[in-house]
């Protein structure tokens, strides 16, 4: 997949940063605003797709390694898996009555679980989707005759 014209490339260069930041914001603020890990991950994927379409598959392959994507997808899944028993442990350890309900520590703890699950979901889904997209880009490049 070759890159597109310099106009498209410059526009993509302008827009990509904003798209990426928006995706990260959506992924990390799912608890208090519309959004969540999955939506944020898909927006990050949109940023990558924009980059690949504008600059071509070769440029993207230098930045994103497929095996790195697989690793991040696995890490996200593991973090999600770790949060689940950690929540049980935290409930048993801190108990319902040992901390006053309005203590800042308890508030932080209460926000930490959903935030971690959301972010791990975003890492897992985002890395997986980006990896599959990159694999498709490479597969397309191999299958197509030389232009």
């Amino acid at each position, binding site marked *: 997949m070759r890159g597109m014209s310099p106009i498209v490339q410059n526009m993509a260069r302008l827009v990509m940063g904003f798209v990426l930041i928006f995706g990260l914001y959506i992924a990390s603020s799912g608890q208090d605003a*519309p*959004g969540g890990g999955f*939506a944020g991950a*898909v927006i990050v994927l949109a940023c990558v797709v924009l980059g690949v379409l504008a600059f071509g598959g070769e440029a993207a392959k230098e930045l994103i390694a497929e095996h790195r994507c697989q690793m991040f997808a696995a890490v996200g899944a593991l973090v999600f898996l770790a949060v689940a028993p950690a929540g049980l442990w935290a409930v048993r350890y801190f108990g319902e009555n040992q901390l006053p309900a309005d203590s800042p520590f308890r508030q932080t703890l*209460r926000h930490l*679980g*959903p935030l971690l699950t959301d972010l791990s979901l975003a890492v897992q889904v985002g890395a*997986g989707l980006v990896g*599959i997209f990159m694999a498709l880009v490479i597969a*397309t490049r191999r299958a197509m005759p030389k232009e």
Partner: protein
Amino acid sequence: MTVELLVLLLTAFMFLAALIAVETSDLLSAVICIGAAGFALCVIDLLVGAPDLTFPQVVVEVVTLVLLIRMIMTRQDTSRQTPRDTLRTAVVLAAGGVLLVVAFFAFGGLGAKGSVPPFGQPPMVQSDASLSAQYINGAQRDTGAGNAVMGILMEYRGYDMLGQAALIFAAILGGFVILRKVGRKRGESEDQA
């Protein structure tokens, strides 16, 4: 009532778009029709007050539309053309029309007494002691989340979410296995692969 009517109209539009996508012989028109159906679904999500669903839906629609159009521009269409079958189209159209009419009256359209609970009042919400009522009343207080949907998904139903994450992970692994560069064939030894 106005929301229901709009949702029904949009559903009819989506049905029509899907039908055109199946029946048209031009791949580009088919892709655009699929995109129209998807964006109609986004509008329905917004109408019924589910911006959480609209975000990923819009992005997925845009990405798939761009990818599919790119694919069609690059590849030649080598699929076999099937002759158009008027009877089949008519049967599908009639079935869809019957479905829409039944849905319209089931939801209490034109003042009919609907057998389905009124729009926006599912049966799980109606009694005060029900699980949904507890979720809705306690979500903000129990979880401290500003977004009650996320509070329910990530705290009350956290293990449900864990199952979904496992499912997505399995799907991603499957994608990687299919798309990997070096494939192992049955009967080959490890060092050959």
